[in-house]
């Protein structure tokens, strides 16, 4: 089976500054990879590179079989799910409307949005506007979004921050669901203990380079 992610000698610069250097990373089907590193080490840039949202400057690689320098990225992006620092909900829409919008753009039945919100425990807040929800609620809604779209590559950037135990349980369930379908998960955080608890393989990132976890 092809690797979910395969990066060789990848370097990324942002604003003229190098952020990632000599990144060699591979992720197999069903694998959960954790990357731990301090602030400014390049964790978010690594996640965005894997999400194909940031272009590489050096090296080569592929994500879900599509070369990073190629033209097939738009097709592949549909199979990538990302939880970033900030929720990506449209503030003026309700949680249900946000998920229905995602469902429609993904070619899915918008009626499934409410079911996804039920699973994450937000059925009573489904008609509440996103800007009237707490950070934790918006984060749960994002998890619901990913339960809906069922990505093959799940990327989590400090996804557990601000979440209670129940919501963290949802993150674990989401990861399990992804690997169970043959997908892969990459999780980055500064919290080494949490990463070690939730992932199988742990790497460290410092000054833009990946290394074995200490």
């Amino acid at each position: 089976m092809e690797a979910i992610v395969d990066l060789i000698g990848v370097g990324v610069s942002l604003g003229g500054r190098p952020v990632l250097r000599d990144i060699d990373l591979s992720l197999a089907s069903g694998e959960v990879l954790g990357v731990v590193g301090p602030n400014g080490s390049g964790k978010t840039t690594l996640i965005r590179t894997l999400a194909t949202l940031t272009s590489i400057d050096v090296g080569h690689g592929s994500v879900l079989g599509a070369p990073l320098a190629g033209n097939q990225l738009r097709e592949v992006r549909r199979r990538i799910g990302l939880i970033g620092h900030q929720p990506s909900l449209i503030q003026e829409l309700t949680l249900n409307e946000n998920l229905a919008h995602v469902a429609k753009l993904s070619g899915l039945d918008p009626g499934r949005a409410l079911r996804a919100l039920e699973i994450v425990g937000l059925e009573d807040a489904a008609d509440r506007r996103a800007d009237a929800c707490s950070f934790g609620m918006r984060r749960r809604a994002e998890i619901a979004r990913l339960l809906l779209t069922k990505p093959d590559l799940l990327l989590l950037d400090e996804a557990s921050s601000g979440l209670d135990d129940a919501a963290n349980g949802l993150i674990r369930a989401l990861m399990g669901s992804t690997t169970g379908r043959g997908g892969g998960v990459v999780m980055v955080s500064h919290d080494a203990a949490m990463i070690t608890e939730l992932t199988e393989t742990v790497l460290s990132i410092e000054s833009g380079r990946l290394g074995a976890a200490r």
Partner: protein
Amino acid sequence: MTRVRLLMSAAAIAVALGLWFALTAPPDRLQGEYSRLINIHVPSLWLAFLAFAVTAFGSVLWLVRKSHRWDRLAAASAEVGVLFTGIGLFTGMVWGQAVWGTPWDWQDPRLMSTAVMFFVYLGYLALRNAIDDPLVRARRSAILGVVAVVQVPLVYFSVNMFRTLHQTQSFRPDGSTMPREMVVAMLINLAAFTVLYVALMAARLEMARLEDAASPQVGLAGDAVRPPRLSEVEDV
């Protein structure tokens, strides 16, 4: 640098020659001495449109090739273009006041297109100035460059249509009353200003190249973050 010096010298000689012809040719019998301004006004407008075309060309090529030199070309041409557009507009207004009795003719499509181009250039340079990331700057200004090259001809066309429906208010002397020597002087100045454009572009591109080469070695983005000094927390 030698090439730039040679071009600048050639430009200085060409412009001096052009000015000499402009000052020694007999003036237009209707416009008088003010007709000599045409030797700066027309070449400046010619250069403004040339510079604009080069900016558009550089923008398209950057979008296709993604090479930094096309972005540098587009930016340098925009800077030189702003200068000559401003000179063209100013000399046009002085000439207009003297000859037409008004500094501005709303029905002149060339004047209106030039004025629009001036502000489009200013917007282009302001956009570049507001962006620090070189790749983002190149990409966004290239997009604006391409949009502008589509819209500015429409500006000319729309004002031209406007003029054909509205009778021109004042008598406007045209080139047919200019003595032959003045026409020759204007053509020489057109050539001289073109040499000047090439020289200024060469100088500006050389400056950009030297600026890029002299840029300090940029450190890793995360190197600015150090471990906190927890034991010194009470010492603040």
